[in-house]
C-alpha cells in the first residue's frame, strides 16, 4: 500500500517554546499628545480641588491654633474678642439635617417603592421625571415656599407637637403656654423644625433617586420566585426588595444627609440666628454653619474670616465623612456594584 498521506517532519523538542510577544503598545506621536492633554486636564482638576481644600485648611489653621480645642465647645461667635466656637452652629446644623432626614426618609422610601413596584408602567416614567425635577428645583425657591407658605401650616404642627409631646426634651418650647388659647404663635416660627421640613423637600429626591435605582435592579428571578411562592406584593417587597436594596437605602439616606448639612439659602431665609446650645427644635431661632458663613462673611476681619473658614472646614469634614460612608455602603451592597451613587 502506498502511503496516502505524508507526515511532515515535526520540529524536535529541542526547539524553544514560543515566547509571548511583548504586546505593550507604544503610543504614537499623536497619542502621546492626547495622553498629555488628558493627563493635564486631570492634574488641573486635581490641583483646583486640592487647592480649595488646602486653602481652607491653611486659613482655618490660624483660627484653630488660637483657640485650640475650645473651638468645638464654645457656642458664642465673636472672633474679634477671640471667643468663638462651633458648638451651637454645628449642633443646629445637625438638628436641621436630622429633622430633614427623619421627614424625608419615609417619603423617599415610599416614593421609590411606589415607582418601582406599585405604579402602572405608563405612570412610571412621569413619576421618575417629576422626582428628578424636584431635585433640580433651586434651593432659593424651596426657601421662599417654606418661608411664605409652609411656615403658617407647620406652626400648627409645632404647637400640636409641643402640646402633646412637650414632655419630650427636644419638643420643649421656652415661653410657650399650650394651655392658653391666646398664646402667640411667634414662639414657634423660624425654628429648626421648620427649616428641617423645608430642607427635607430638597433631600427627598436625592434619596429617592438612589433608592429607585437600587430597587429597579432587584433580580427578576427573585421577585418572581417570591410571587410564585404565593407572596403578596408587600410580602415580596419585605423579603426581596428591601433586603436587596439595604445598602443603597443607607447610602442614599446618607447622600441626602450630606446635602442637608450643607444647605445654606433655605435655612438662611427661614431661621432667625441665635448662638446658644439649643436642643429645642420647635423653638424660634437656631443656626447652621453655612448660614453663619453667609451672615458673617462680609463684616469679618481677616481673623474673623479665618474663623469662618474653620467652621466651614469642620462642616466640610462632616459632609465628606458622610458622603464617603454613603458611597462605601452603596458600593459594598449587593445591588450597588453598578449604580452611580
Amino acid at each position: 500500500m502506498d502511503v496516502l498521506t505524508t507526515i511532515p517532519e515535526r520540529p524536535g523538542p529541542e526547539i524553544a517554546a514560543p515566547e509571548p510577544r511583548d504586546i505593550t503598545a507604544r503610543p504614537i506621536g499623536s497619542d502621546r499628545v492626547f495622553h498629555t492633554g488628558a493627563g493635564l486636564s486631570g492634574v488641573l482638576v486635581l490641583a483646583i480641588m486640592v487647592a480649595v481644600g488646602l486653602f481652607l485648611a491653611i486659613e482655618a489653621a490660624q483660627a484653630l491654633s488660637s483657640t485650640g480645642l475650645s473651638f468645638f465647645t464654645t457656642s458664642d461667635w465673636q472672633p474679634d474678642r477671640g471667643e468663638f466656637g462651633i458648638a451651637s452652629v454645628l449642633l443646629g446644623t445637625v438638628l436641621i439635617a436630622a429633622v430633614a432626614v427623619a421627614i424625608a426618609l419615609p417619603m423617599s422610601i415610599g416614593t421609590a417603592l411606589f415607582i418601582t413596584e406599585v405604579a402602572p408602567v405608563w405612570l412610571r416614567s412621569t413619576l421618575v421625571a417629576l422626582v428628578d425635577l424636584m431635585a433640580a428645583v433651586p434651593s432659593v425657591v424651596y426657601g421662599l415656599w417654606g418661608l411664605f407658605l409652609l411656615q403658617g401650616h407647620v406652626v400648627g404642627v409645632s404647637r400640636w407637637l409641643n402640646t402633646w409631646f412637650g414632655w419630650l426634651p427636644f419638643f420643649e418650647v421656652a415661653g410657650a403656654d399650650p394651655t392658653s388659647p391666646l398664646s402667640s404663635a411667634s414662639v414657634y416660627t423660624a425654628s429648626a423644625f421648620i427649616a428641617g421640613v423645608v430642607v427635607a423637600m430638597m433631600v427627598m429626591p436625592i434619596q429617592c433617586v438612589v433608592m429607585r435605582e437600587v430597587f429597579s435592579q432587584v433580580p427578576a428571578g427573585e421577585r418572581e420566585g417570591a410571587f410564585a411562592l404565593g407572596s403578596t406584593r408587600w410580602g415580596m417587597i419585605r423579603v426581596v426588595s428591601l433586603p436587596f436594596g439595604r445598602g443603597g437605602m443607607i447610602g442614599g439616606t446618607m447622600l441626602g444627609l450630606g446635602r442637608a448639612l450643607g444647605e445654606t439659602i433655605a435655612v438662611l431665609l427661614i431661621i432667625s440666628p441665635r448662638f446658644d446650645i439649643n436642643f429645642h427644635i420647635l423653638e424660634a431661632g437656631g443656626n447652621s454653619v453655612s448660614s453663619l458663613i453667609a451672615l458673617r462673611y462680609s463684616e469679618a476681619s481677616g481673623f474673623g474670616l479665618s474663623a469662618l473658614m474653620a467652621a466651614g472646614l469642620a462642616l466640610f469634614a462632616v459632609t465628606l465623612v458622610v458622603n464617603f460612608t454613603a458611597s462605601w455602603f452603596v458600593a459594598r451592597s449587593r445591588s450597588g456594584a453598578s449604580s452611580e451613587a
Partner: protein
Amino acid sequence: MTILDNPRSEAPLSSGSPAQQAPLTTLPPRPGPMSAPPVRRPLGKLSRRELLPLAGAAISALATTMLLFGRLTPLDGKFGFVVVAFLVFLATYTVLVSLTEGRPAVVDRLMTALLAAAAVTAIGALFSVIVFVFIKGWKALTKPNFYVNDLSVTGPQEPLTSGGILHAIVGTLIMTMIALVITVPLGVACSVFLNESKGRAAMLVRTVVTAMTALPSILAGLFIFATWILILGQERSGLAAAIAMSIMMLPIIIRSADVVLRLVPGNLREAAAALGAPQWRTVWHVVLPTARSGLTTSVILGVARGVGETAPVLLTAGYTATMNLNPLKDPMVSLPLAAYELVRSPQETLIARGFGTAAVLMVLVLVLFTLARIVGGRPAGRLSKGQARRATAKSAADLARFEARQMEVGR
C-alpha cells in the same frame, strides 16, 4: 403534538382496518370549538373587589373628618384635616379589606396605600412649590416691563408697572456662559482622562472629585471670596461668581460624565482599535459621539444645579439693581440672588418681584430640565431619528463614492 391530538386525522385510520380497532390509548374528550377561550384576568387594573373598599373608605374618611371638624370637636386647620382624614381612611380601609381577605392581603393593601400616599405627598409638594411661586409672582410676571427693565430707577415704593429683572436675567446668562466655558472642556477632558487611563493617577483624581461633590456650595463661594477678592484684591464681579459656580459645578459634571463614558460599549472601542485607530481618534470619533447625548445631559443637569445656586453667588457677585454687561467689573446679580434679596425687604411690591424672579428662575430650570430629557434619556449609541437619517445619508454617499471609484478602477 398538534397532529396527534387532532381527532379528524385519526378518523380515517381507525375505520380502515378492523385489526387496528382496539385503541391503544384513549384520548380524553376535548373541549369543542364552541367553548370560550380562557379569559385573561387583567393584572394591571384594580378589580371591583379592590376598588370598592378603596372608594368606600375614602368617602367614609372624608365624611367622618368633616363631621369631626365641623360639628363634634373644636378641631381646625387644613393640615390637621388632611392628616385626620388619612388616618380615618387607613382604619376604615383596613376594616373593609379584612371583611373579605386574610391577614397578609390586608397588610399588603395597607402598605400599598401608604406607599401611594408617600408618592402623592412628594409630588403634591412639588406642585405646591411650583404653583405657589407662580401665584405669588403672577402680578409681577404679567407686567411686560418686568422682563425689559432693571431696578435702577425704581424705588421700593413704586408699583409693579415700573422696573424689572432684566439685569438678573442677563447676569445669570453671562455667569452661566462663563461657567460653561470653564467647566465643559475641563470636565469632559477630565472624565475622558478618568476613563482612558486606568492607573493610580486616575483613581486619585476620581477620589478627590468624589470628595469635592461633598463640598457645601457656600464654601466654594467663601474660597473665591477669600482668594480672588481679598487676597488678589479683585472686586466682586460676575467673573468671580462664575468661577465660584464653576468650582461647584465641576465635580458634579465630571462625576456624571464619568458614569456616562463608562457606559460606552467596550466592543466599539475595540472595533476602532482593531481598525488601527490611535487612541485619540477612538475617543474623538467613537467614544465621545457615542456618549454625546449622555454627556449633554450631564452638562445640562450640572448647569441646572449651578444656575439655581445662591450661596456662592451671594458671597462673590455682590448685589446691584442696575444692568451690568461687564463680568470683569462691578457687581452683577443672578436670578436666585435677586430673588433672595428682593423677598427680604418688607415691601409688598418687592416681595412680588422676588417671587416673579423665582418663577423666571423656575422656568429657566424647567427649560433646561426638559432639554436634558429630550437630549438624554437615550442609552449610549442609540441614535435619534434625525441622527439616524443623517447617518443613513452619509453611508449612502459613501456607497456612491465607493462605486464611482470601483468604476474608475475597472476602466
